């Protein structure tokens, strides 16, 4: 399967500067490994996380677990986090429950429809081989 988006070194990545080094591993932002789109269903936000390269997908599967995502969004969501795998699309789908202050028209949030939970997830730091 051919993939678009081979050039991973975007301006945003360069701005991050040198990744933190620890032994044979280094930490990078999820932004360097994946892209994402998010939306809503009622009070649930969904974040689709998509590997930028096939080689990155197993890293996402291993490290971006439902538990890790729940910790990442601590204080921003009230409910549980579910994860679904779509290996055919190199994607993970996360459901963030009770994330939108009631959702839809009830919500008082700027992001009442969960549109930018996507990039909020991409702030996560991930360990990759050096």
């Amino acid at each position, binding site marked *: 399967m051919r993939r678009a988006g081979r050039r991973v070194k975007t301006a945003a990545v360069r701005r991050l500067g040198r990744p933190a080094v620890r032994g044979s591993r280094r930490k990078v932002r999820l932004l360097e490994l994946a892209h994402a*789109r998010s939306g*809503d269903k*009622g009070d649930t936000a969904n974040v689709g996380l998509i590997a930028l390269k096939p080689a990155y997908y197993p890293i996402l599967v291993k490290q971006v677990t439902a538990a890790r995502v729940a910790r990442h*969004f601590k204080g921003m969501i009230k409910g549980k986090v579910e994860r679904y795998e779509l290996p055919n699309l*190199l994607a993970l789908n996360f459901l963030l429950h009770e994330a939108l*202050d009631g959702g839809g028209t*009830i919500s008082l949030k700027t*992001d009442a429809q969960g549109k930018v939970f996507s990039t909020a997830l991409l*702030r996560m730091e991930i360990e990759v081989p050096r």
Partner: protein
Amino acid sequence: MTTPVVRVGAGQGFWGDWLEAPYRQVTQGPVDYLMMDYLAEVTMSIMQKQKSRDPSLGYAKDFIPLMERIFPTLVERRIKVTANAGGVNPRACAQAVAEMARRLRLSGRLKIGVVTGDDLLRRLDALLARGHELRNLDTGRPLSDVRDRVLSANAYLGAWPVAAALRQGADIVITGRVTDTGLTLAPMIHAFGWTRDAWDLLAAGTVAGHTIECGAQCSGGNCLVEWQTVPDLANIGYPIVEAHPDGTFLITKHPGTGGRITVAGVTEQLVYEMGNPAEYITPDCVADFTTIRLSQAGKDRVQVSGVRGRPATDKLKVSIAYFYGYKAVGTLVYAWPEAYEKAKAADRVLRQRLRDLGLKFESILTEFVGADATHGPLALQETRVGDLPEVQLRIGVRSPDRAAVERFTRELAPLILNGPPSVTGFAGGRPKPEEIVAYWPALIDRKVVEPCVELVDV
């Protein structure tokens, strides 16, 4: 004889989408069908309100001038339209289109199909009495909790009644609450003769519908991957499905238009508003998104294949809207130095005053736009808030008590002169209390919903 390829172009991804899109879609290259999706979760209740004030309203009114602009092209190029612009009054919408067509002297040149049967509002008490509880899919509560506040109730219909209208010769099919995906699947059913148990094919058409139902969001709009390099967004081309009888299809757009159709962009749209990807449930089938295969088949051409589906469930989703209460959101802008600290101080003062007034709110939500409004504590951890040039204090309240919300709206402006310094940005005046119409998703037995297809001659 089956047609080898059917081209379904997206013209609107939501009520309020780009008005230029449908015109460009039908004039800048070949399409066989123009698909226009108007209905979001609470759109029906807005339309119901309009209809209760004037029985001739209750549909997307801007659909009429939009159609007027493209009608001569539709007739000349024999392009058919599927649109759920009918809202809670599809017949009135069809009449308005028919009158407009007569004004354009197109009488006898086309037929309008109307799909109804989705509206359950008048049947609601009878259904509840017969034991249909219409429990909220999220909370599990029975509809009887809010029955006296229900404003609209519509079952989601699928592609079949739309396909039936096409089979009866309709050129324009106007519907009420038909699924977004059904509007794209119906032309394929009609053109290829797909049967009701061809689950893989129906799932393929459903995936095609999901891909283009948000318009340009799959052709380069709102696309994060290398967003800076997406060409000519000002002239973005809306997506087109080129469908084949075997259930494979291409996503493409007209040559010479802006935007970009890539595997990455299509994938972003596929996961948009996704639940369990193995069970994408529609009235027509259950599509399995974990079977989708994508490949770049050329510039601005993405090939989709491999889609598998399973039988549709015996339930239909029902979209119910009910009156919930009132809300208001107000803002003030604080400037450097210590902009964030000033905004936080203003928030504390305001909250104390609301407390001292004894006002009761179900919720008070404060956000600091420029600091934490979108990414919350994740952003605050990294931002040097002391240096921010400005921060917008955005505070909202929600209450069943309109008077409490009304009073809140009067408490913002005084802060300009009697609160923390360096504040501006109140030119818009005080916020207005808004009625909250909330969404109540439920399921109902498919058997009790009877789709109806009518034809209107022009």
